[in-house]
Structure formats: C-alpha cells, structure tokens
C-alpha cells in the first residue's frame, strides 16, 4: 500500500517534471526540472533497495553534473545563442524521434505480453531485508569480474580530462592569471 503510493508519487513527479523540462523556454527552469526528474528517479532506486545507485545518482548527477550545467547556463546567454542556432527541420526531427521511441516502447510491451507476469518483465523479487549491502556487491563486481572494462573506462575518462585541460589552457602556456 505505502510502497505503491510512494512509487506512483515518484513516477508522477518524474514524468511531470520531465515534460516541464522539455517545454520550458528558460534554460535554468529546464535545469531545475531536470534536477527534480533525477531526484524522483533516485527515489525509485531507493525504493527498489538499490541504495548505492540512489546516492550515486544524487552525488554524480544532481550534485556534480547539474551544478556544472547551471554554471555554464549562467555564464552563457543561451537565449541569444539559440536565435542563431534554430534550424528549420526541428518539428520533423521531433516527430521522427517520438515515432521511433514510441514504436520501440510499444514493441517491447507487445513482445512482453507473452511472458509470465501480465505483460511486464518481472525478476524474482528478493526480500528487502535479505539483500546484501549493495555497495559491497557493486565493488565485488567492479573489482573482480569486470576489472578490465572498469580500468579501460577510467583510463578513457582520464584521457578526456587531460584533453579538456589542454584545450582549455591558453596558448601562451602561462598558467596563472
């Protein structure tokens, strides 16, 4: 009872604020609604017992990436820049994307109807109090089973970071302002 109330609350908030995020003209308002969407999704993660995923979503997306987004939006006058960038085929592209996504979602639901569980993918549910602490599980899989891909991904990120620093550095090579 409480579980479904919470789920529908988070899901509703996520969907409504996602819609608002797309429709707002003001970029900062969009960013605020994107934050609300991300927080609501984090709430659903928490409800599923994925505590580490929940907090990673908050720390990385809301606390890190969104702060940088807002930082950039504040410094760049987006409303001026957008006038130069507007292209004509916009509506066509929007309709195309919606059609593809809709077809995909519909296909999945149609296909899933033949599965047990009334048209939804249902994993075997574990008791909430019998779950192992999932930060440890995650560490196990990252540093045991998937060590190589994990290291490759981190090297890739490091390369991207160094590249960004080099591109941002001014050409003379002086570092202090």
């Amino acid at each position, binding site marked *: 009872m409480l579980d479904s109330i919470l789920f529908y609350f988070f899901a509703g908030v996520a969907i409504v604020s996602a819609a608002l995020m797309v429709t707002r003209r003001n970029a*900062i308002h969009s960013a605020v609604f994107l934050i609300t969407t991300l927080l609501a999704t984090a709430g659903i993660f928490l409800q599923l017992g994925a505590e*580490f995923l929940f*907090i990673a979503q908050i720390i990385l997306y809301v606390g890190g990436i969104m*702060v940088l987004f807002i930082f950039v939006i504040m410094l760049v006058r987006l409303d001026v820049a957008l006038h130069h960038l507007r292209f004509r085929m916009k509506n066509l592209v929007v309709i195309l994307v919606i059609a593809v996504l809709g077809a995909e979602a519909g296909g999945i639901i149609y296909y899933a109807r033949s599965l047990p569980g009334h048209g939804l993918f249902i994993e075997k549910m574990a008791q909430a109090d019998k779950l192992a602490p999932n930060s440890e599980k995650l560490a196990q899989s990252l540093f045991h089973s998937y060590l190589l891909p994990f290291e490759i991904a981190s090297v890739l990120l490091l390369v991207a970071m160094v590249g960004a620093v080099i591109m941002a550095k001014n050409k003379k090579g002086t570092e202090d302002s």
Partner: protein
Amino acid sequence: MNPTLHSLLQFLQTWWVELTCGVVIVAVVPLIAGYVVLVERKLMADMQARLGPMRVGPHGLLQPIADAVKLLIKEDIIPADSDKLIFWLAPVISMTAALTSMGAIAFGPSFQVARDINIGILFVLGVSSLGFLGIILGGWASNSHYSILGALRSTAQLVSYETAGGLAVISGLLLSGTLSISGIVAAQEKQGVWFIFLAPVAVFIYLVASIAETNRAPFDLPEAESELVAGYMTEYSGFRWALYFLGEYANMIVVGSIATTLFLGGWLRPFPNVHWLNWLDYIPAVAMLLLGVYSIYRAGKQPVKVQTGFMWAVALACFATAAVFAVPWFVATLKFVIPGLNGAFWFLLKVAAYIYVFMWLRFTLPRYRFDQLMHLGWYILIPLAIVNVFAVGIAMVLEALGWSRWLALVPTTIVTLAFAALLVRWHDRRTESASTASLAQDSYAG
C-alpha cells in the same frame, strides 16, 4: 475498527521512533541554529574584549528569539527583474538539503531517522551538497552582479574543496570498513580508538575543507562584504534571508556531525572500553546539575528583577534536564534509554567542540584571496589528501600482513606530513617566481 485507522495505527507503531526523530530534528535545529549564532556573537565579543548582546534577557539569552521575530516581520523585498519562481525556491532548497541530510546522522545509538540505510555517510555528504543548488540558483535569480559573482565563487569553491573533503572522508572509511553511520561508530568502539588518532592528517584536511564548504571565514569569499556586499544573499531580505542563514548554520552542524561520526567516535563517551572509567556515564547529569547551580549563582547578580526570574527559569530547565539524565539510573524499566541519552549528550558535545574550532578560526584568521584559496585547494590539499589515502591504505595492508597497527600507521603519517611540507615549499617557490615575473610586467601588481 475502521481498517484505514487500523493500518494508520499499525504504521505509527512501526515507525514512531523515526517519526519522532524527524519531528525533533525539524523543530529543534532552527532553535539550535539561533543559539549557535548567539554563542558565536558572545565568543566574538569575548575574543575582542567586549560583552556582546546583553539587553534581551540576561546575558542576551533571548536574543535569538528577538532576532527571529524581527526577521519574520521584516519587509520581504523581491527585486522587480528577478526570476520569481527560482528566487522563491532557492532558499528553500538550501535549508531543506541541510535538514534532510540530518536524517541519516546518528545522534545516539538509536536516534536516527534512516537507521537501516547502509550508505549513511554518502547520503549525508551527497544530500548536504545539494544546498549549493540553492546558493547558485538564488545568485542567478536575483539578477544582480554581486549575487551572481558570489554564486560563481561559491560553486568554484565547493567543487574544489569537496574533492579534498571527500578524499579525507575516504581515509576514515578505509579504517572503519563500512559506509553505514552506526557501523562506523561501532568500528571505533570495537577498535577502542577514535580515528582522529589514526588519521590526523585526514582530520585536518576535512576541517579545512568543511570550513570552505560552509562558506565561513577565512574562506567566506562568496559573501565577502568588502568585495561583494553580501554575495549571493545580496538581494534577499526578511524571512528568505533567514532561511539561507538557517541553512548555513544547519550545514555547520551537519559537517560537524560527519567529522564527529568519522573521526571523534560519534556518540561514544571518551574511553568507551575502559571499565574503571565507567563513572564517566554520570557526567551528563552532573554537568547539567552544575550548570543549574551556576545559573542560580548568576541569578543573584542580575540588575533587574525580571532577569533574575528568567535566570531562575534557566536554572530550573537545567535541573529538569539533569533529572531526565538521572532518573533512568534509578528506575529499572527506564534503563534502556540511558545509552541513547548519554550518546546524544556526548555527540552534541563533540559537535559543539568542532563548531567552536570553526568560530575560533573565524575570529583569528584574515580572509584569503580567491587565487590563494584555489591554490590551497588544488595544489596542496588535494595532492595531500590523495597521498594520505594511499598512506592509510598501505598501513591497512601492512596491518593485514601482521604488523602492529601503530607500527604501520606512525611511519605512513610521518611520510604524509613530510610530503605536505614539500608541497608547501614547492608552492611557495612557484608563487614567488610567478609574482616576481608579473611584477616585472605589471606595474599594478602587489
């Protein structure tokens, strides 16, 4: 019985501890924040050989309430060109983030809202850092240069110092081996030592980083009044301003709680495993009793009759608290609350000590310049924090190999300190050459 009512009762029966804790946090933290402000003003007065607030109540004890009333009835100004929605939302975000993050802090063995959450420390760190959205959005929505500059400074400062602070927290987590808050305190109880003695460098880094994260002097550049009027709060007035202020002080309590939990033994009394020191458990009641006696002593010295009466009331409140601490010792059925009450006492005492250090530094040190702040963060604290994580990790490995803990930790700490000295030296040399170079080019420098 009505089924809805029945399920409601069942809900309350399961969750009453958590609900009470939540209500207590939301109701008491604003009051505590108000009195932290009073203590800060009194301390500042003491360190500057003044008296501080003395008029409202004896020794200014009612000053926070007067301030709150003043802020509530003050005119609420919203600038005409501001973004109303965000302007309205920003202070609320700032305060909500601080109060929400307290939900996972364990003030006592069972005084915790989110008790079963096994990533407690990450929850507190992550959610309290959301308060910065309030600052940056408020600075933008005010549509004022001072505000936006303050917000930008504050974001840059947060991003720089959260890294160092996070790495310092990692050293503490390595020692405890868990992310759960009660687990961290339990680890300190089991190992019989506060982590401040095992990782002193981490504590120092966390102290500096937490001062910078809460925007306090000497790192209060986002609201440096001589440069930016009031930074991101410039356009705020009345109750909205009070919400920002509340968020800031609540954040101080939050970082103090993180430091207490990780490094100062949480709710444990000093030497929790030494049995001949068990008399320390009576300290809370005795301390409150002594405080009450002192209030009676001061009551005789008040100049006005009303103030004498108020002082008596304070004394009675102290005696009542002492009674709350003392009664469970004599009533067998109430014995189970003793660890909780004593735990809360020790926890709050440690948090208060941490906040005292904050204030002490604020009245002692002059403000940093912004490039100095960035240099300190990126060139000294972050490399030092990384080296410290490595040092603690190496010590843990050595300990796992059978070394004694102290034999492993003392040399690694010394190596870290030597590295810190080297870093400072390198940095001094570099800035020296840079400043002489810029002096040669720029006649306005210096």
